[in-house]
């Protein structure tokens, strides 16, 4: 077990603080109708950022659910650009360059877990070093895909880190209606793999656990199931009103354990953090997201982009449909005002 150095912790906090600032900006953009529905990261900052820092962006892969992007920027600044495109509904919103080892967001819950297992397995077969890390929620852990994939990972001893972010809620469904298990990490024994339960609000603990799982996997020891306990501090998505169902006292209690505040005060105690640093970091993060938003809005979009990348080559019928759409011109279809023809 390698505890993160103070420097590493500081780098993690920079990402966490940046993510939180950017999340606030996104919330406002959504409220102004500039971007679509999205799932805020609030409360997940430590588990995501510390994981990204415990991994090696040059060899390891991350397969997110949908709440993580803002804290994954260590894997490449393109993550932010992509996320902005995603949020404005641009098809490039799920494309990252080959150098960035982050998979597209996943909407169909838990389906990314077998992908991560297959990718880890494939890397082993191709003698590529590295591990894959897949994020999924407590709710997603009830899906059959979770079970099938984790069991398969155990059989294959695939180098995959199965990271369950237990934020106690799946939209309005609390954990005790999701499962009668005391801990989701307890499921590991049923797959013959190690399972650990950690405080996901403790960035150092997350870093430790991910690092240990990574070393195990790289050494051929196979997968680890990590349950990181956090609390969803915000709404499920911008379309959700959690005050309808999240008990106010629970939320209040969770806020005293806010992962950002915890790490801020830890590093402040060490003299490694202060309000000035924080303000600077927040400001820089906001500049980055505003620029990314502008780039996204200016991103070109071909009139017939709807047909691109379905197949490598259009089938005859798609080719006809493409031609018809292009021939119909402005009256044959309408593209949303934000789009720009190439």
């Amino acid at each position, binding site marked *: 077990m390698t505890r993160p150095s103070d420097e590493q912790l500081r780098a993690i906090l920079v990402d966490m603080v940046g993510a939180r600032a950017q999340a606030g900006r996104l919330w406002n953009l959504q409220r102004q109708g500039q971007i*679509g*529905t999205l799932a805020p990261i609030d409360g997940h900052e430590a588990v995501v950022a510390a994981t990204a820092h415990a991994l090696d962006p040059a060899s390891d892969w991350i397969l997110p659910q*949908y709440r993580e992007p803002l804290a994954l920027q260590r894997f490449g600044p393109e993550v932010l650009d992509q996320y902005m495109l*995603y949020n*404005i*509904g*641009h*098809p490039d*919103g799920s494309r990252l360059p080959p150098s960035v080892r982050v998979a597209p967001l996943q*909407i*169909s*819950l838990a389906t990314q877990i077998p992908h991560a297992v297959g990718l880890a397995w494939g890397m082993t077969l191709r003698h590529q070093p590295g591990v894959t890390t897949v994020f999924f929620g407590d*709710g*997603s852990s*009830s*899906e*059959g*895909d979770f079970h099938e994939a984790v069991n398969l990972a155990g059989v294959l001893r695939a180098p995959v880190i199965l990271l369950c972010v237990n934020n106690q809620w*799946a*939209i*309005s*469904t609390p954990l005790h*209606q*999701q*499962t009668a298990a005391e801990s989701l990490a307890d499921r590991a024994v049923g797959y013959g793999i190690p399972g650990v339960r950690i405080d996901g609000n403790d960035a150092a603990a997350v870093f430790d656990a991910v690092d240990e799982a990574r070393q195990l996997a790289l050494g051929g020891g196979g997968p680890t199931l990590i349950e990181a306990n956090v609390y969803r501090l915000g709404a499920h998505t911008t*379309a*959700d009103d959690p005050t*309808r*169902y999240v008990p106010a006292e629970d939320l209040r209690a969770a806020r005293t354990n806010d992962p950002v505040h915890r790490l801020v005060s830890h590093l402040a105690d060490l003299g490694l953090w202060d309000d000035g640093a924080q303000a600077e970091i927040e400001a820089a993060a906001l500049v980055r997201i505003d620029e990314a938003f502008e780039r996204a809005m200016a991103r070109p*979009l071909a*009139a*017939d*982009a*709807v*047909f691109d990348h*379905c197949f490598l080559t259009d*089938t005859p*019928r*798609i080719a006809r*449909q493409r031609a018809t*759409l292009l021939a*119909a011109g402005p*009256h*044959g*279809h*309408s*593209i*949303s005002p*934000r*789009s720009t023809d190439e």
Partner: protein
Amino acid sequence: MSSTSELTMLQAINEALHGEMARDERVMILGEDVGHVGGVFRATEGLFEKFGEARVVDMPLAEGAIVGSAVGLAMAGLVPVVEIQFLGFSYQAMHQIVGQIARLRYRSQGRFEPAITIRAPFGGGVRTPELHSDSLEGQLANVPGLKVVAPATAADAKGLLAASVRDPDPVIFLEPLRGYRGIRGEVPNNDHVVPLGSARTARSGEDLVIVAWSHQVEVACRVADSLAKEGLSIAVLDLRSLVPLDIEAIAVAVDRCGRAVVIEEAAQTGGFGGEVVATIVEECFWSLEAPVVRVSGYDVPYPVGMLEDAYVPDEARITAAIRRTLETA
């Protein structure tokens, strides 16, 4: 005291569920987030409070088990009404829907009654994330043992949902996302049941008939109304249920008009539109004065928000198809 009220489709659905639960204590609601918060669209609002947590159940996030346990509930004589949060996630339960629910009666040769309704929102136009807008009705209609119902108006949403819940066989009840708040109309206040399997003439006409279902009926009616100003008489036939299919009504409408356009949001290849065309050919070949044209989604995945308007059949595409069909021969 009026015998109807103006409701959105969502309100009409909610009213039908209230009515069915009050009417038959075997009726239960299962799904993700359907209880305490009344559904992500509030379709099940108020049911939890009124009928209690034993009958309105927030289920773990596992579509296979939601649908699969409904099979067992039906075997126990209950009448489950399942909400799949978005139709695209019915794929997670498709082995239970196709292999189990749809065959429960057949396999047991009548012993067990699969009186199960699966409700799910679908269809485009509201800038949802991936897999939230997919139109799968053509695939579901090919599954023997399932009925597939797709209302286009608020009144039909109430009446067809009541009929679906009371139906002794499994019904997939498709609710257009755009229609939840976008479609409104007068809805009978009292018990209102629209039998499954009868199409509705949304517009009468002589020159051409548009065959449609769900949200596209409204689009078709707008097209018909606007072409009426040019003196064209365009009928709109709202199928209301794809299975059972009202072959008779299709035949009557096409025989009268001699020309037909079929519209649907799903990908063209293999969509239900092909079934409608084949049925027209079987029934009305000698009345046809022009080829039946389909206006469909394209053969690509339902796209992201910025591309939606290019994908979903709109008034311009439908109008163009109508003009082409009318100009033929």
